């Protein structure tokens, strides 16, 4: 696009005070950034963009922008930072409605004042916006024992790619009134429109929590013990096995570590800790609960290459061992059957090699009905290997055409817009 055209375009958006802030998306320079203050403004901006055929990259807190396919130029940025209010919160209903640009941290802070929380801990931190959390589907170590965003979402206000505002679901905890459009956005990378408001089901915050550290001798003994604890129905929020290099970073302990997050009432936690001590053939130590946050942010950083692998629990030992062999260090969330790992790439040439290795790993996990997803990676790698590796169902393409006829929202993220 010519400079003059850009100028005209940015004039079209003048009432929304477009700015050029120099922040890149996928190493590319957006034309400008607009930050609407309410759903109506989102709708107006999208309408104008749609009429101009202009792509809009939707940015929340920008903590999870390096996943999905590389965005296709030209695009402007619709930043959700100003969509950060609480729309409605009735603590006794255990539901909250907030605008989509609110960070999870602000949401958790509000809820904590009433002894509640959204039981989700996505990496790398609570800085993620709630809209970003929904569309990326990123969960954390509690996933498996606790629900994820797609389970906790009760309703949403979204804006289609032609600017039409659509509401679905509601503010009640149980609702089957019509199609659950809000679920469509879970994991969609924004390809069906802009999420402007979300309603979640929340839970009481455990009054007590502790993280236990156990040192198993090997991956297998660690995973087996983890599975045993999970099958006993204890109130554990997560059981994570870390590889030695992660153990070294986290607790200066270069060993396999089994970290068990127990949360509930004081009696529940006390009884669980005692029972786990009885069950474990290895020593069980209580450690600082801040370790949970440290583990979450262990792979934080724009230029890191972070993958998530999902496999049936039975395969975790095998896949985690394999990943370590190919130099991917990480940790396994045993309840969810997910392994988060960091790949070390040397220079650009070795990216080809890495893409090849990840391709092989993907083939192996797919044989077990699993998947490999690139959660964070530089654009080079995301151009060499499909970040999600899933063939798109034809109905998804149809849905995209219905919900974003000009294919302007996050252009190219999920493919399309050729």
């Amino acid at each position, binding site marked *: 696009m010519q400079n003059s055209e850009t100028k005209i375009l940015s004039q079209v958006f003048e009432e929304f005070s477009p700015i050029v802030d120099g922040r890149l998306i996928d190493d590319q320079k957006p034309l400008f950034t607009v930050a609407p203050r309410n759903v109506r403004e989102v709708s107006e901006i999208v309408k104008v963009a749609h009429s101009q055929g202009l792509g809009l990259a939707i940015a929340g807190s920008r903590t999870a922008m390096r996943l999905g396919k590389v965005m296709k130029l030209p695009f402007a940025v619709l930043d959700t930072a100003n969509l950060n209010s609480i729309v409605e919160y009735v603590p006794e*209903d255990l539901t909250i409605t907030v605008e989509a640009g609110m960070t999870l941290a602000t949401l958790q802070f509000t809820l904590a004042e009433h002894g509640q929380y959204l039981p989700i801990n996505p990496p790398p931190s609570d800085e993620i916006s709630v809209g970003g959390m929904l569309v990326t589907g990123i969960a954390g170590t509690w996933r498996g024992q606790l629900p994820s965003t797609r389970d906790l979402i009760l309703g949403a206000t979204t804006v289609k790619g032609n600017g039409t505002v659509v509401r679905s679901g509601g503010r009640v905890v149980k609702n*089957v009134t*019509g199609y659950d459009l809000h679920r*469509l956005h879970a994991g969609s990378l924004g390809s069906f429109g802009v999420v402007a408001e979300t309603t979640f089901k929340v839970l009481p915050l455990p009054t007590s929590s502790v993280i236990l550290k156990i040192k198993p001798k090997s991956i297998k003994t660690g995973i087996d013990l983890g599975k045993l604890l999970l099958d006993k129905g204890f109130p554990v929020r997560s059981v994570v096995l870390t590889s030695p290099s992660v153990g070294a970073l986290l607790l200066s302990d270069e060993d396999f570590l089994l970290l068990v997050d127990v949360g509930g009432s004081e*009696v529940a936690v006390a009884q669980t800790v005692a029972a786990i001590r009885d069950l474990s053939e290895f020593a069980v130590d209580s450690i600082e609960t801040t370790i949970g946050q440290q583990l979450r942010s262990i792979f934080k950083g724009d230029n890191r290459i972070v993958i998530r692998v999902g496999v049936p629990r039975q395969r975790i030992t095998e896949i985690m061992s394999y990943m370590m062999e190919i130099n991917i260090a990480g940790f396994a969330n045993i309840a969810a059957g*997910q392994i988060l790992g960091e790949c070390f790439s040397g220079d650009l040439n070795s990216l080809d090699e890495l893409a090849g290795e990840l391709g092989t790993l993907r083939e192996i996990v797919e044989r077990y009905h699993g998947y490999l997803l690139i959660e964070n990676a530089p654009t080079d790698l995301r151009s060499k290997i499909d970040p999600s590796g899933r063939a798109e169902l034809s109905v998804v393409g149809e849905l995209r055409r219905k919900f974003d006829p000009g294919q302007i929202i996050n252009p190219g993220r999920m493919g399309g817009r050729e």
Partner: protein
Amino acid sequence: MVRFFKPSRNKPEPLVQELIEIVGANQVLYTKEDLIGYEYDATIERATPEVVVLPLTTDEISSIVKICRKFNRPIVPRGSGSGLSGGAVPIKGGVVVSLTRMNKICEIDIENRYAVLQPGVINLQLQDRLQTDGFTYAPDPSSQRICTLGGNVANNSGGPHTLAHGSTVNHVLELEVVLPNGDIARLGSRVLDTPGPDIRGLFAGSEGTLGIITEITVQIIPLPQSLKTMLAVFDTVTSASEAVSSIIRRGVIPVALEMLDQEIIKIVEPRIHAGYPLDAGAVLLIEIEGIPDAVESDSELVREACETSGASEIRVATSSEEREKLWEGRKAAIGAIGAAYPAFYLLDGVVPRTKLPQVMENVLAIASSYGFKCANMFHAGDGNLHPTLMFDPQNEGILDRVLECAGEIMRVCVDSGGAITGEHGVGLEKTSYMEWIYSQDDLEAMENIREAFGPADVFNPCKILPNGHGCAVGHAAEISMAMAGNKMSSDIYI
């Protein structure tokens, strides 16, 4: 009113012949007598299909769909027909695909915590089967003895244990479905959080309008270490409703929190002998599960909450027989109404939990202003109401009054920030209420969903979306016509 779309005949027509070629003569029903059983579900509406097919495999279903497309006939998927919104009623005739013969539990994988099932497996059969391994499948509709898992997924059914464990959608990992063009697709996967949009989640609750569910993989969970079932007795529905909020305020989420009011207790107790006090204004049936010490301490908090809200008595089940009795009263309540009254009409509103006391007062006042007895047994913890209006269908003009009263009650739910169905689905029954909740733009987006899957008239036409959104005939009128025509032939109007 029973609708016949084509006079039933005894000589197979080309459509029937082609279907027989696919699945064999034993799996295709087309004579008038054979079709009668497929005219209705558990609601008031009836309509006769042209043909019923009972396939055994996904491939057969794929071929059936293609044949129906060729002959331009709508397809209505059907499980056990226990639905409470007219979802399985073939209102436009066509072909009913009954999934009841696809009833195999294909695989139970305890280590990986999933079960793979054909859609016709009965909910309770799965629970019973898992129990021996110390596991369970959480969603437990009161109809679990008869309803199919395919129907559960299609309706995103709930149950008493939804409060802690969520509805069906929260337990489904993967679906195999046949789409309107006959293609077979897999949605989700056996592992959690497959990348990509959650089409699995969208499909759950789509009431047979987007395709036929041919295989289901669900998550299974370990049985709790310990369980406590309590019965709290109150003088009024209002104080019982207040206790519900008071329990939640104390940070306790029971696995089940169910209410029965005086009217239903009077119907249930003499028949089931569940142990509910006959003079109670309302009872709460409360279940807590977890590790033993936590169950003890949580039940103390529950006791405290009930007492401060005015409970006159709190009883704890001391044996599994006692627990089962308490639950039987709840789960058999609808059947008991059927035995006690010539007809009844059951609603499924949902409201924010804190609005319960006010809404319940309004519901009872509305019912009494119409002169109806109204029984209530419902998922109080979820704010999911089932006001049930009892009436004598012989009374002149009664059906219009029932519908009018039901409409007023639904209005109260919507006005309190709630919705028109918490678990039974929109089906045919509530399509005309959809506009109370959603704008034309919202409904158009739902239509977009339907069209993205294929033409709106292929699967279950005229369900979910109101008049003008894929269905030419207005619905409120249809219901009253159907009820009026049907009043002699059915004694239960659920």
